[in-house]
């Protein structure tokens, strides 16, 4: 060994525990910061509870009743389901602008297959669900294999699917009475039942189950961890042995399937099959995801947060309406919440705080 002087000896007297993983966080703010870092759904939960409390105080039992609170659930069910799909895609650092269009065309396929071709309604529903999944898978293939940006792929798919939807349906609505008479299964998700004063629909139950199942899958299965890893750093995930392409395609396909279920729920909610419904689902789902604390940069956030995000929007909408405020106030406040949520996300990502 050539004359390497003992330059490291100078550091010998310094503290030795280089790799100690101590957790020495001090102060309320940094403790809170740490809690947010590990539990990203905490912020939307706090906002949700606070907004329910505020509207509860302002409106009393008109708002703070099982009926009103479950009404919120009914009003957010479609957006909630679509937002769950959007969450999966955004967790991979992507975005899906075609969610609303997939939901609508799936509902149109279910309706038209039943009424135009006389296919048994169960089969028609299965076809609708399959169709949504296939569009999602195509999005995933374009993103993962062709390496096109998700924003562009789904922007294009949105236009294609929406146009195909109008062309195929000839812009015709299938009337609610006809569905109720001939194929009531299409309206299944809208079927209501009450517990005490609370009113639930199957669509609401589906949303609740979907959130629980996705939360489990994301947290407790290898696929779920891969979704986060791919969104966090795709190269690192690939080198660690994750099949990034397969994960991405499966995420977009699953998102397509969930949107198709949203399309089914949409028939239940509005009663009819209408090719012009669900126009705002894209923006509303992204809003719920962002307010729910999922990072648009991928890899961070939880599906439960998205659910809270959707509920926050629902609480504001109903609460302000009951207060008699102009509907524009709702949009204004939601806009503020979106910007605040992204600001909080940026703050959470500063791990060195």
């Amino acid at each position, binding site marked *: 060994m050539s004359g390497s002087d003992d330059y490291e000896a100078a550091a010998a007297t310094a503290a030795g525990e280089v790799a100690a*993983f101590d957790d020495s966080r001090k102060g309320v703010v940094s403790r809170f910061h740490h809690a947010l870092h590990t539990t990203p759904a905490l912020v939307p939960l706090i906002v949700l509870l606070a907004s329910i409390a505020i509207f509860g105080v302002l409106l009393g039992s008109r708002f703070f009743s099982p009926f009103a609170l479950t009404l919120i659930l009914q009003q957010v069910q479609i957006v909630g389901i679509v937002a769950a799909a959007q969450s999966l895609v955004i967790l991979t650092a992507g975005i899906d602008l075609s969610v609303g269009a997939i939901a609508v065309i799936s509902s149109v396929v279910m309706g038209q297959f039943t009424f135009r071709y006389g296919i048994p309604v169960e089969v028609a529903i299965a076809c609708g669900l399959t169709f949504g999944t296939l569009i999602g898978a195509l999005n995933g293939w374009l993103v993962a294999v062709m390496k096109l940006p998700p924003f562009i792929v789904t922007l294009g798919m949105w236009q294609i699917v929406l146009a195909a939807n109008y062309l195929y349906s000839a812009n015709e609505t299938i009337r609610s009475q006809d569905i109720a008479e001939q194929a009531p299964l299409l309206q299944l998700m809208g079927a209501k039942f009450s517990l005490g004063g609370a009113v639930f629909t199957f669509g609401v139950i589906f949303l609740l189950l979907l959130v629980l199942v996705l939360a489990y899958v994301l947290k407790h299965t290898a696929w779920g961890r891969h979704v986060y890893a791919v969104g966090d*750093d795709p190269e690192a995930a690939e080198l660690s042995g994750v099949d990034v392409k397969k994960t991405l395609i499966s995420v977009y396909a699953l998102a397509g399937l969930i949107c198709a279920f949203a399309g089914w729920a949409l028939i239940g909610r509005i009663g009819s099959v209408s090719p012009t419904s669900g126009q705002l689902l894209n923006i509303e789902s992204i809003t719920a995801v962002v307010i729910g604390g999922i990072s648009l940069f991928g890899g961070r956030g939880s599906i439960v947060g998205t659910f809270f995000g959707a509920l926050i929007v629902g609480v504001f909408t109903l609460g302000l309406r009951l207060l008699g405020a102009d509907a524009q106030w709702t949009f204004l406040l939601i806009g503020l919440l979106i910007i605040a949520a992204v600001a909080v996300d940026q703050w959470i990502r500063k791990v060195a705080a």
Partner: protein
Amino acid sequence: MEPILKGRGLVKRYGKVTALDRCDFDLMPGEVLAVIGDNGAGKSSLIKAVSGAVIPDEGTVELEGREVRFTSPIEARKAGIETVYQTLAMSPALSIADNMFMGREIRKPGFRGKILRQLDRRKMEEIARDKLTELGLLTIQNINQAVETLSGGQRQGVAVARAAAFGSKVIILDEPTAALGVKESRKVLELIQDVKSRGIPIILISHNMPHVFEVADRVHVHRLGKRLCVIDPKDHSMSDAVAYMTGAKVPDGVHAD
């Protein structure tokens, strides 16, 4: 003694650039082999060719005397070759345990694992903790801490621990001390010794001559896309090595060309 990992006549071209020019490579069992070379000499291409990250245009790679043709790092990994990349290949937002088991998760036994696909977190955390303790990365209070909250040295430690935990035959370390301070580098060098003492051979790619000369048993000098020579660090000085790899001096027995 037969080399555990052997490359013969490896060629890799990128367009008009020849990154590997009929390159040979030998890693003996149980040794630490350093690979040094100037920037652009083709060190990375060589390592990628033996670890499956690139597919060589010509030549053969043999692992334990059997020819292998890896088409991805994952295949190499399955064969027992673990690589610690300079970028570490870790997901910053995920925990230490998640990262260590990324791509090779352990599921719970029985119904919950098979049907519900539930991960066995407790078992993975236990193994992760054991592996880190084994390598002297002790006092881990929270194995569920996100990797991004660790220091550079700690991250390197976790990456090396991951490789050591699963690399049954060969571990490749790409510039493990490049981004580290003095104390953290020391820790990583100790890790290398620890891994070596357990009989797993290591390929160390580094620009840091003091580190190379401290831990390497043999030094592979790479120049212009091929192996110029292999030197014993006990018989050569660091300035010799630098002179060889920059072409300022030609080692005995090698014809200048």
